[in-house]
Each structure stands twice: as C-alpha cells, then as structure tokens.
C-alpha cells in the first residue's frame, strides 16, 4: 500500500537536485519566524505566517487580493509548483500548503522531513533571500470543501457519518494545558476538547526522523480510533497548523475525500460562550 497521492510529497534529495529548476518555487514557513534568516534552502522564499499569511486586522486567512499580491511580489506564478518545508516537522509548511489548496493552487508539495532533515543531512543553506521576478498571480475561487467553520463543527457533533480528530497533545486534549507545553499558556478561556473528538496527536503520524510513516501504519493509526475514510472528518488543534498537518496526512497520504481543517480550532472553540466542551 502506497500513499494515495505520492506527488504531494518530495524527498530532500529530490529538492537538492532541483534547486535550479525554474518550474519550482521553494517556500519555507516556520513556527519560529526567525529560523529562515538563520539559514534556509538556497533559493527558498521565506513566508512569515504571522505577518504575511493572515489578515493583519481580522482573524482570517488572506483575501484573494492579498494572496495574489503576496505571490506576485515574491515571484510565484500560476504555473509554478510550490515546494513547502519548515521547522517543527512542517507544521506551518502544511498550513501554507492547505492555504494554497484553499486558494486553488493545486501544484504544491511538501518536503518530507522538513527543515530539520535538510540540515541534519548536511545539505547547503544560505542567508541570501532570492530575487525572483515578480509575477501576476491570479487566484482561483476558494475551495470551501477543505475548511470547517465553528457552526459546521457544532452541527456535526455526534451525527452519524461524522468524525472529529483533535491532533493536540494529550494534556491539551484533557484540558490540563491550553497550549503546547513549551509555549505560553494563552489563547483560550477554557481547556478541554470538542465532544466526540478522538485524540490522535499529529506527531503519531511521524517517524523518528521527521518523515511520514508508511501508509499501512497511518491507516491503522487513524482507523483504529474511528477516523475512517467513509466519514466526513474535521481536524482541529489550537490555531490550525498542526491540524493542517493531519489534514495533509488524511487527504493526501491516505486519500480521504471528505476532510476539513477547522482553522479556528481551540483558540476559537475554547473561548466561545456556551460551546460544549468535554474534559
């Protein structure tokens, strides 16, 4: 059994062999927004998820005009295949990948193992930012089938044919923590999880070297906890990046047809007045 969409992944060696390929744009997106400046894959564009990939006033993804402007300015065209990678085993690389899919950019891949594997293998890094020629990027219509909003999540709780996966750490799921243990404990008024959600931490999908586990193991992991391909699945975490990672696993590696990322995630749900919570 192989991955459902093997084209969604590339290995570090392939990227190393294609650094000068004009059909590609390589993009780094990190949790630690200073990482890119410390050294990155030669030719990689750096996106700061906090200041470049979200609206700076509302809590919302980029608008069509903002998305088009960012890609045009940084030299990403409609025909480019975009290779995403980043730190923390591609948390925000997966989130950016999901963003691009949301705006209809289908030619996208994730570099298996991310920034850490590239560096661990002793591959070249540079502090030089690329200077690609500007483009005139035109975004397509959004794909609402891959995004969940709070009302959809609420409406789906306990309904037959629906499944929900909380990909945070067990202590966040139980309500003991409000955020990852190494980050400030902020962002939601209450701790716990959405009723009926199974807890499958995103990292359980990974090998010890930061690459994805084989398809057979992933299938057993998710189906063993009721996250099966016949259901409409919603994945969530705290702010939507770890759940993008699991969304990628379910959609691209296992081929689930109906899986959404709830990017509002716990920072929204845990602060909603009256929202049901389990601990």
């Amino acid at each position, binding site marked *: 059994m192989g991955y459902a969409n093997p084209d969604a992944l590339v290995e570090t060696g392939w990227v190393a062999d294609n650094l000068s390929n004009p059909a590609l744009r390589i993009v780094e997106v990190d949790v630690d927004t200073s990482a890119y400046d410390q050294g990155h894959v030669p030719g990689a564009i750096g996106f700061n998820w906090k200041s470049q990939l979200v609206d700076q006033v509302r809590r919302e993804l980029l608008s069509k005009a903002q998305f088009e402007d960012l890609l045009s300015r940084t030299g990403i065209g409609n025909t480019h295949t975009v290779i995403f990678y980043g730190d*923390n085993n591609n948390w925000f690389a997966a989130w950016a990948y999901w963003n691009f899919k949301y705006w209809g950019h289908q030619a996208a891949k994730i570099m298996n193992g991310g920034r850490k594997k590239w560096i661990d293998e002793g591959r070249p890094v540079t502090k030089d930012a690329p200077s690609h020629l500007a483009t005139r990027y035109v975004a397509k219509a959004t794909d609402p089938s891959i995004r969940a909003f709070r009302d959809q999540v609420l409406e789906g709780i306990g309904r037959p044919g629906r499944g929900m996966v909380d990909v945070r750490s067990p202590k966040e799921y139980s309500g003991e923590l409000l955020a*990852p243990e190494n980050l400030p404990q902020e962002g939601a008024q209450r701790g716990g999880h959405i009723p009926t959600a199974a807890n499958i931490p995103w990292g359980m999908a990974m090998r010890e070297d930061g690459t994805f586990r084989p398809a057979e193991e992933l299938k057993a992991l998710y189906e063993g*906890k009721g996250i099966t391909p016949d259901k409409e699945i919603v994945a969530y975490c705290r702010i939507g990046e770890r759940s993008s990672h699991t969304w990628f696993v379910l959609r691209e590696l296992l081929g689930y047809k109906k899986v959404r990322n709830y990017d509002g995630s716990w920072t929204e749900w845990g602060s909603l007045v009256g929202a049901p919570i389990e601990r």
Partner: protein
Amino acid sequence: MPSADEIKRLVGKRVTLRLAPAAGGPPTASGRLVGTLDAADGLVVTLQPVDQPGRRFTYHYHHIVDIKSEEA
C-alpha cells in the same frame, strides 16, 4: 510521567512502557525503543514490538506513565 530526557536515554534498548488509559489499547507495550521525535508540544516515541519486528507504533509521551529498560 518520565521526562523527555529519561526516555531519550533509553533509545536503542528494549523497554516496557506503562500507558495511561487515555492512550487506548493495552496498558503496556514492549519492544525496542527505535527513536524519538522532538516537537514543541512534546515528545513522540517510536517502539518496535519484539513479536512484530516489521511494525512500529508511536506514543505521545504524555501517555507514558512509566518506562523501564528490559536490559541489564
């Protein structure tokens, strides 16, 4: 719960994990500790069961109540 460092020191050894009920499945798991994965939300542990050498299982360390080496 053992610390991440305590777990990492046992990489490569045969170990038995005692698991919290929230982990689901059996209360213990034994095998060779193949490796660990560090992340901002905690350590993920990969175990290769002795009786299923072709398979690997992963556990978040929040679910590990205790870890013991089975080697002298």
